[in-house]
């Protein structure tokens, strides 16, 4: 094998492995949360550790019972906002930009109901402090 071919093979393999390791580094956290009615919000009790320096957080809804839908954002352990808000939808990953959480810190999902939502509900979702 020529040196050039070896070099290209090495670079390609390195990139593939690097990409795989970045994808593996970030993870989903599955959580359920009781969201109050009339514009209430609740923070998940489970956290997700930020693994990369991604500027967005990811949310994916599993069970979203209310018709008005929900929004979510990433918050830190003091429940202070760490990202912009994003809509949460069933089986669709949405991204909240402006993720200011630093690597190796815990992120939680804060889920909001609509101000005109008359029912409280149990929401099940998975979220990540990184871009998925």
């Amino acid at each position, binding site marked *: 094998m020529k040196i050039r071919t070896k070099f290209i093979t090495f670079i390609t393999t390195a990139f593939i492995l690097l990409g795989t390791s970045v994808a593996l580094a970030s993870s989903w956290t599955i959580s359920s949360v009781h969201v109050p009615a*009339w*514009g209430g919000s609740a923070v998940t009790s489970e956290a997700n550790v930020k693994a990369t320096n991604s*500027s*967005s957080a990811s949310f994916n*809804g599993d069970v*979203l*019972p*209310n*018709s*008005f*839908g*929900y*929004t979510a954002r990433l918050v830190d352990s*003091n*429940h*202070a*906002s*760490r990202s*912009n*808000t*994003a*809509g949460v*939808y*069933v089986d*669709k990953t*949405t*991204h*909240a*930009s*402006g993720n*200011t959480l630093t690597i190796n810190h815990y992120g939680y999902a804060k889920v*909001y109901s*609509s*101000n*005109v939502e*008359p029912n409280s509900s149990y929401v099940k979702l998975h979220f990540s402090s990184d871009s998925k």
Partner: protein
Amino acid sequence: MLTFNRKKRIIFLICSYLYISITTILYAKTEFGSLSSVPKEASGLDFFYSTQGSFSSALLFFFFISVMPFIYSHNIISAKNSNFNNFMITRLGSKKTYQLKAIISNVVYSGGVFLSYRILQLVISVVIINPIDFKEETRNMMYRLPYIFSMNSILNLLFYLILSTIGVIIFSNFILSIGLFLKNSVLYYATGLILSLIFSLVPAMLMGILNIKDFVGSLFFNSIYIDTLVTPGLHTLGAYAPKFNAWYPFFGSILFFSLLTFILYKIWNRFYAE
């Protein structure tokens, strides 16, 4: 333009600006823990969007949906119920001219006041959160796809300000058209709140009961949803991601509410106007 109680209106405007400023700042404080701990990367523009519509602070949301009749149109309804409008009709020469002037005045005042509310909130968001980095915001627009007006964040903001003002004007005239049928002026003050709740709860309830997921059904129910009209391009109804951009439901809601308003004006003119 028809002018009623200029002094009272100025006091009302000052009080409402103060209320909006305070509640917007309080909302930021709640979301970020304290204003001194707002991260440098936090987006002022996103915070502005989060103060709009049914997912914002309850204090802001219920103010915006209840304030509509108080801005101007209650003067028209009070004048109608106390027969004071007869003097103005006599002075202006015809009933048609009076009605046209009343509608135009309502359009100008409602649109102008609501646009000033939005601009005030935008300024407060920029001052207390962070200045807007439109390049970064444009990069982040892809996260909001497909429910946006434009991929360019400046254009998207401009479209939001203009279209939400148009939506407010249409809704304000819709409330006015309902108010024409009311004999009690005090009852009219509650119509903004009541109609907003009706046009929020009914489409949401029907969408839930009928388990609407398809494109046409979702577009229809989003079109009759009041949030789509007054805060377009921000939130959709339902648990499923929208498959359309923000233009379709907005035009649908303009068509629906304009048609409803037109029909109500026609009925009132034909059967009720003396």
